[in-house]
């Protein structure tokens, strides 16, 4: 269990509150925000490149559950993070539209020639939503909190480079230096979503060792201050959380209007995907994301009459796959599974399964065509990193039979597949019962493999039971799961591909690589981590993808499309394939 939050951190390691395309930094003497004293430092605005909108109005968004906390350091659930993204800001941000890094609270940064020292220049005159100035001390304080092992922040793992925490020091009021123990490719992406905290509000509690009690959901607006486009206004337990415009926000549009445009963002708590779809369809909410293709089909029918638009952004970063238990079970007391591992460990067996699976049928029957078949883990949505040389072989039962035959399998009179020792091939596929799509995928695979004479059972279990079996007890034979890359970069995936990684699903947490090809992947991944040049990194990551394709530890199946919807009157809505899919540019949204 311990490792799932860690994975979740990688998955969620992304935030909102940004702008489109390139931004121009302008330092002019604009009048301060309402309530700010006239003697305030001049504000160093970030000028966005969007088409200027107009102020006023609100949007209503549904959250799957009530957020657990407003503490940006400790939040792990999607709902909390969606709200916190509107309330906070980071130093360097990944633009969800371009997928490239861009200045945020840091207006510029320099990398030392050895690739280890980042010097960040902070935007001047920035204020928290309570009017207090934001300085280098806040930055140092924030990173101190994130890196404190006692706080146990989920992002901490990612801020440890080469086994050592990132060093943070203040040079002057608006310059901060970050020192890495080793060169780290694309390290500026690490700053994304690391929310800056107000030292003046939180230092006392942190020093008292009570940081885990900071900013619960019951926080009053006066106790909260952030650097995001919105600030806390009201929380009604079980019903909604309302954010209002942050009058001190540090971005403006070309016309000189301070962002955000919206007066309010209202998050309603709607506890099921179906209910969210119904609320959106009936016009109760303005924006919808994270819903499945079946609901997309239903929503399409009333899009014109109910005045909303739907977006199919094509494959995202999520990939679904089948994998076999390759763990060392010698000390686990699971002799039956251990006996079947003779099949699972044979690469020809895995390749035969891959050849027999009808990926097109999964795309059609499970996702209504709104998905893409894949043969490797880097989805076509990740255009920078996907390896075009990975073949896309069509489904072939013949080649599957050839592979099985060459591995010593045969068929008995009734058509059942028999292994070299005369044992019929029978195994079970674990799925999560709450995930309809994955259960359906497993049922289709069951039918596909029965055509090879394999007797496959589908075992849907409750989510936590599945995670426990996959990562802790290793009491399973095969499983259908999905992962979503946290970023369009190989680095957040280290935990999945390194043999020592805690989400190296087929055999997590190895002391030393169990196979030569896993050792090779380890080497390539470590190497790309310290390679600064994109083309060279791509070459290394391509080789990882090719090894994964040949060895098939994960039999990659499909990548679902990212789907979103918004009312016709929500302007400048540009959903992205990177989390948060819909509200990443919330400060630029306006109501027509």
């Amino acid at each position, binding site marked *: 269990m311990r490792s799932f939050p860690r994975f979740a951190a990688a998955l969620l390691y992304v935030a909102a509150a940004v702008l489109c395309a390139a931004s121009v930094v302008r330092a002019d003497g604009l009048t301060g925000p309402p309530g700010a004293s006239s003697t305030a430092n001049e504000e160093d605005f970030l000028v966005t490149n969007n088409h200027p909108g107009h102020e006023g109005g609100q949007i209503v968004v549904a959250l799957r559950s009530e957020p657990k906390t407003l503490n940006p350091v400790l939040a792990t659930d999607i709902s909390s993070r969606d709200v916190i993204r509107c309330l906070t800001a980071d130093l360097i941000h990944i633009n969800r539209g371009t997928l490239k890094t861009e200045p945020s609270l840091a207006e510029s940064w320099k990398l030392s020639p050895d690739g280890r020292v980042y010097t960040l220049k902070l935007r001047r005159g920035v204020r928290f939503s309570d009017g207090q100035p934001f300085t280098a001390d806040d930055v140092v304080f924030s990173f101190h909190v994130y890196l404190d092992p006692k706080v146990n922040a989920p992002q901490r793992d990612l801020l440890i480079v080469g086994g050592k925490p990132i060093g943070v020091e203040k040079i002057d009021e608006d310059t901060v230096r970050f020192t890495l123990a080793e060169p780290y490719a694309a390290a500026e992406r690490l700053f994304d979503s690391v929310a800056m905290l107000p030292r003046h509000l939180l230092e006392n509690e942190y020093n008292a060792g009570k940081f885990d009690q900071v900013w619960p959901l019951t926080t009053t607006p006066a106790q909260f201050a952030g650097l995001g486009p919105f600030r806390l206004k009201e929380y009604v337990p079980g019903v909604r959380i309302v954010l209002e415009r942050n009058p001190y926000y540090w971005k403006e549009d070309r016309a000189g209007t301070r962002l955000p445009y919206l007066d309010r963002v209202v998050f309603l708590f709607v506890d099921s995907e179906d209910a969210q779809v119904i609320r959106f369809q009936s016009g109760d909410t303005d924006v919808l994301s994270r819903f499945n293709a079946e*609901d997309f089909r239903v929503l399409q029918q009333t899009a014109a009459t109910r005045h909303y638009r739907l977006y199919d952004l094509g494959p995202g970063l999520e990939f679904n796959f089948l994998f076999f238990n390759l763990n060392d079970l010698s000390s686990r007391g699971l002799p039956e599974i251990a006996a079947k591992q003779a099949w699972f460990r044979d690469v020809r067996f895995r390749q035969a399964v891959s050849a027999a699976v009808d990926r097109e049928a999964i795309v*059609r*029957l499970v996702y209504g*065509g709104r998905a893409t078949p894949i043969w490797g883990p880097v989805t076509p949505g990740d255009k920078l990193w996907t390896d075009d040389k990975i073949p896309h072989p069509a489904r072939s039962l013949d080649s599957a039979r050839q592979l099985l035959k060459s591995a010593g399998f045969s068929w008995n009179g009734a058509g059942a597949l028999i292994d070299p020792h005369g044992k019929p091939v029978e195994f079970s596929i674990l799925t999560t019962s709450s995930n309809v799509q994955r259960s359906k995928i497993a*049922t289709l695979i*069951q039918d596909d493999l029965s055509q090879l004479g394999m007797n496959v059972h589908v*075992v*849907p279990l409750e989510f936590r*039971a599945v995670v426990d079996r996959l990562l802790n007890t290793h009491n399973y034979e095969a499983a259908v799961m999905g992962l979503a890359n946290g970023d369009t970069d190989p680095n957040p995936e280290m935990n999945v591909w390194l043999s020592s990684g805690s989400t190296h699903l087929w055999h997590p947490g190895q002391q030393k690589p169990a196979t030569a090809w896993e050792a090779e992947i380890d080497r390539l991944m470590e190497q790309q981590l310290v390679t600064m040049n994109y083309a060279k990194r791509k070459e290394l990551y391509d080789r990882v993808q090719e090894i994964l394709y040949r060895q098939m530890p994960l039999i990659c199946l499909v990548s679902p499309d990212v789907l979103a919807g918004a009312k016709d009157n929500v302007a400048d809505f540009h959903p992205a394939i990177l989390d948060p899919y819909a509200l990443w540019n919330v400060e630029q949204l306006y109501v027509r």
Partner: protein
Amino acid sequence: MKRRRKLWITLGFLAAFHLAVLFAGFFAPYNFATQNREFPFAPPTRVHFVDAQGNFRLRPFVYGLQNDSSALSGFTTDFGRVYPIHFLASGARYEVAGIFSSSLHLFEVDSPGRIFLLGSDGYGRDQLSRFLYGGQLSLLAGLLAAALSVGIGIAIGALAGFYGGWIDDVLMRGAELFLALPWLYLLLAVRSALPLHVSEWQVFLLLICAIGLIGWSRPGRLIRGAVLSAKERNFVVAARGFGASNLFLLRRHVLPQTYGIILTQLALLAPQYILAEVTLTFLGLGVGEPMPSWGSLFAPLQQYAVLVSDWWMFIPAVILVPVFLAYYSAADTLQERLKSVAL
């Protein structure tokens, strides 16, 4: 006389329904696991007697089905392809109760034609076939589980009510404990103790035991109440005065007075238990794919998309309404009859 006719009609209907479920292989045109991947969520196939030229045909027929993404349902009818329905034709092999196997089906159409009288599910599997096969497990498990929980309820309720005193206290506190236990967590624990793959027979026994053992306390308390009042009645007291033994009294005089409660409980619990399987399936205690059960047939109805666009997925649920009504009605009539016999 009227009541008697009603009873016979109800029992006849129930018998016909149960026979159809028992001989699912004969009445179902397809195997429950056969996927037609080109026809997911196909609406019910219409049976025609009059063809496109307006000619009447004695042999009913169906038209071919075509994928068409522009149509609302995703399919259009291909009027150029006609598939006559063959009765008592041979098709896929099946077994009846594991005793004999056959390939004779009530009706069939020639491949590549398809006949989905109740539509198809998300994998293109025939819903009618799945409904009939699913009933084999669900009906039997539901009835046996109801019988088990009522059986335990009778034993414990009768003991507690008849003997009273400390026996009553111990048994009824036990029943309350059963009512208060957090069953969901216990079932999760049971699931993790079981092997990964549980065979159909094991699931069947598990369903009966889990549901039956959890459910006995309510009928048990009811029966205790009935026994408590029955044992004080004058003729029971008189029989005791004539030297009747406890066991004789229970069997001859007390329990017959609780038959009404037992029957109504059975009729009430059976449908409840059939639906309880949906929950158990979610916890991984139900039958696995591709084996159908009524629980797994109803599960897709929880999805909004299925609810609003695939109306035929409701048909199995709708069919069960008269079946359960027939159960209630039969229990009701039987109870009346027993009452008139007893008095």
